């Protein structure tokens, strides 16, 4: 039975290796991409029999529950959408397909491990697998200085992040004698003279995870990395890597550090306000499409942090829904940016000029993504914000809800700068022919963005059980 619980991870690992092999030996250039996509589909299929099961294996190194399942499905879906998104881009930029897709599969494997463990060591291993893959992926454009800078910067900051996490972890281990979150919770709630050490360790870990989700003031790497990395990689990092970090935060803080909630809830509230406000303010003045989306990613992480500040199951459920909705908006938007960069590799906002006339349906889809980022119905982004605000108001944090909605209104300024360029100017940027992969991703993402709002009931029910898994244990 235990092997079946870890089957999705086994499939991802095997698939990743197969992609490497195909990259070395295969003659057809499409093989690695096809294999990677097949791997993600296989992983999704392997997740299906696990629904409804709650179990722990190998002393909590691996857990299966609706929370883990939700995130693993989200990560596999991210990978599955990034592959067709990347196809034309990888061809055009001369990226080695075998390595590229293999690293994406391994990164997704790392994310899955982070979401499905209750042991800090395992979570850390997953994080490292994800990170090391991401460092390489960020530098895949070998003759682009910005990509190399992104890779190096991500690596250096990542190393420091790992150090912070490990240092915090060692302090926590010192008082609990275990790396399992339940054991940590018992040790922390016993609350003898060592509580101060636990709080210190927790804050180090908070800073470490803060770097991963690019929360202000731990964000300074994010604009450069998301801007410099190859566009499909930026999408993977923003949609997948951040969600993985949030899944780990939820596991560790709600269970392990649950008794210390009074010490971290306010911190997350401050981080949320700083992150969304800074991200939105900085995004307003950008001229590069990717850099603007990078700051937008910071702002959006700020919205998700609201769920942690609220600290109720509703808040956590809202975070999960938001991350799922966010996945589709990000992947859809970056698919368009990657496609536009085929004709104009600088990836400026002005590349969107005249898209409303040249390719109307893609422009319409981009409008859907943008209003979803802002949080205007009928889009999933709206419902996600609605849930977050609802959670904040129900926890008597109306002030946080107001800060959040004022931020959304400000964000309309820059999201609409794309809409303005697509429809309101007379100039037209040249565009390449639309690759089938891009059409597929944009179409699916736009449809999902609308349908997740109009028919959310199945997802809501799933989240209802997932949010109980991480219910705060004080």
């Amino acid at each position, binding site marked *: 039975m235990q092997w079946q619980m870890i089957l999705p991870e086994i499939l991802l690992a095997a698939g990743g290796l197969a992609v490497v092999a195909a990259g070395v030996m295969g003659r057809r250039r499409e093989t690695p991409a096809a294999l990677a996509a097949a791997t993600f589909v296989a992983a999704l299929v392997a997740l299906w029999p696990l629904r409804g099961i709650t179990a722990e294996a190998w002393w909590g190194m691996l857990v299966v529950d609706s929370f883990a399942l939700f995130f693993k499905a989200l990560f596999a879906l991210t990978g599955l959408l990034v592959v067709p998104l990347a196809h034309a881009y990888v061809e055009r930029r001369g990226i080695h397909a075998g390595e590229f897709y293999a690293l994406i599969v391994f990164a997704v494997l790392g994310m899955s491990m982070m979401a499905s463990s209750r042991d800090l060591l395992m979570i850390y291993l997953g994080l490292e697998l994800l990170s090391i893959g991401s460092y390489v992926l960020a530098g895949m454009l070998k003759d682009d200085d910005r990509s190399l800078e992104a890779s190096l910067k991500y690596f250096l900051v990542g190393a420091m992040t790992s150090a912070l996490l490990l240092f915090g972890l060692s302090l926590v281990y010192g008082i609990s004698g275990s790396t399992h979150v339940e054991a940590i919770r018992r040790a922390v709630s016993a609350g003898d003279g060592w509580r101060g050490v636990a709080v210190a360790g927790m804050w180090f870990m908070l800073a470490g995870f803060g770097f991963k989700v690019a929360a202000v003031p731990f964000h300074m790497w994010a604009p450069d990395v998301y801007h410099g990395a190859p566009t499909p990689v930026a999408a993977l990092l923003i949609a997948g890597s951040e969600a993985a970090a949030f899944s780990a935060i939820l596991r560790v803080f709600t269970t392990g550090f649950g008794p210390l909630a009074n010490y971290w809830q306010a911190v997350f509230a401050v981080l949320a306000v700083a992150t969304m406000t800074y991200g939105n303010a900085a995004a307003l003045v950008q001229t590069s499409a990717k850099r603007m989306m990078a700051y937008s990613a910071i702002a959006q992480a700020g919205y998700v942090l609201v769920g942690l500040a609220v600290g109720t199951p509703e808040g956590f459920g809202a975070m999960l829904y938001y991350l799922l909705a966010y996945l589709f908006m990000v992947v859809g938007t970056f698919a368009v940016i990657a496609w536009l960069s085929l004709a104009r590799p600088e990836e400026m906002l002005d590349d969107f000029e005249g898209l409303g006339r040249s390719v109307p349906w893609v422009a319409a889809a981009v409008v859907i993504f943008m209003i979803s980022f802002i949080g205007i119905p009928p889009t999933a982004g709206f419902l996600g914000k609605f849930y977050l605000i609802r959670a904040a108001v129900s926890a008597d944090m109306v002030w946080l809800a107001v800060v959040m909605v004022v931020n959304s209104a400000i964000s309309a300024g820059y999201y609409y700068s794309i809409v303005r360029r697509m429809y309101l100017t007379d100039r037209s940027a040249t565009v390449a022919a639309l690759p089938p992969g891009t059409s597929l991703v944009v179409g699916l993402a736009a449809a999902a963005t609308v349908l997740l709002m109009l028919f*959310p009931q199945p997802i809501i029910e799933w989240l209802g059980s997932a949010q109980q898994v991480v219910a705060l244990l004080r």
Partner: protein
Amino acid sequence: MLSLLIFTPLIGSLVIALLPRENKDLLRRVALLFSLVPVALVAIMWARYDTAAEGMQFVERIPWIPAVGIQYFLGVDGISFPMLAVTALVTTLAILASFNIQERVKEFMALMLLLETGMLGVFVALDYFLFYIFWEVVLVPMYFIIGIWGGPRREYAAIKFFIYTLLGSVVMLVGILALYFQSGLGTFDMLAIAEQARLNPTAQYWIFLLLFFGFAVKVPIFPFHTWLPDAHVEAPTGGSMLLAGVLLKMGTYGFYRISYPTLPDAAKAFAIVMGVLGVINIIYGALVAMAQKDFKKMVAYSSISHMGFVLLGLAAMTPMSMAGGLFVMISHGLISPMMFFFAGTVIYERTHTRMLPEMSALFTKMPVAATLLAFAAFANLGLPGLSGFAGEFFTLTGAFEPLTSLVAVAVLGMVLTAAYHLMMMRQILMGDATAEAAGHAAAHAHGHGAAGHGALAAVRLPDLTLREAIVSAPLMVSIVLFGVAPSILLRIFNPSIQALLSRMGGL
């Protein structure tokens, strides 16, 4: 019935998206056809409408997201049904008035229909979540309508409109959620919350303020009005007609539908503030309108002024003043589109200017069009016998008892309104076209003796076309009808107003 009503335009908009963009006439006709369906449905509903009943009619209710207590819940009563009718009518006329648009006809017509779905939805939604969705859906098409087909400063006006109203509505959303949790009923059902929630006054004050912000931006209430002149002036005629005719009423409708029935204690506490703000709107709007040289800007500020009467009617909280406020909403919903149609299209297309000092003697240059404009201006300034007067009369009479001093100031506003309309008409309608032309001709053709001869023919402008007459006719008929027989509307308003006031604690 109501679902069909609100989603027919959406279907129309999708159909238009599939039609070829080259065939402009086809696109226009299809759009008109789809916008006529709601008009027909409203007419059928009007025939079946039970004016004796005080509750919701034509109710549709399906669970939507039961986990959170969200339903798909529609219905109309005496407060919303007349607005629904105005929306259906004015949208059709705005589409007809926009037949002269030549660029990107396909997108324009699709957006107008999408906008109509949003507007109709706002007036029939009885679930807060659904209400908010329709409320926001209105924003996006209007942004494009202003931004693509607007005047020279369209980009600025469009984003200003968008961000202002978005800010207002997201704060309103927080208010809605606060209401949801304070009520403790676990439902977004507007009627259930209004009837069953027992909110303490402090909670009511806060929620009232949050909702007030959203509605105030939309109405707009001074000092939240600064987006309006830009948006109205830059919008193409069809957009201005809908902005002034329908969108502003969404704000006051929010007070009637949500704030007053649900938060009666707060409404009473804030009544005096609402009244003062209403009078400020009336006087300020009228004074600024008087100073305008741009015709459209004048009409835009006159809208601010007229919306002040609705606020005054709400503030007084008597059956007559509340009905008067609704009457002003309907009446202004008919008159202001006509004013914008003339200022932005009929006059502008012939004189190629909107500047009042550059126009004169339109009575001689285009007699029929000028007469119709005079009709609209008289209706707008409140000439007895037309609907504008009836609404203001009911409002002021109803408000006289509780708010005597405010009514006295508001009457001064009516005088100002009459003054700037008359000044406008003297400037652009009167004057001696022959002498003016002779003067021009003399200046141009210096020394040619025959200049005076035939000058009258030279200054004749093409008069009202058939299409323009068809746009004006339904508005004029309704304005006269409601002016001479206001009971047609009052009969529909009264049961709902009575129910509202008795729920608020019998005033």
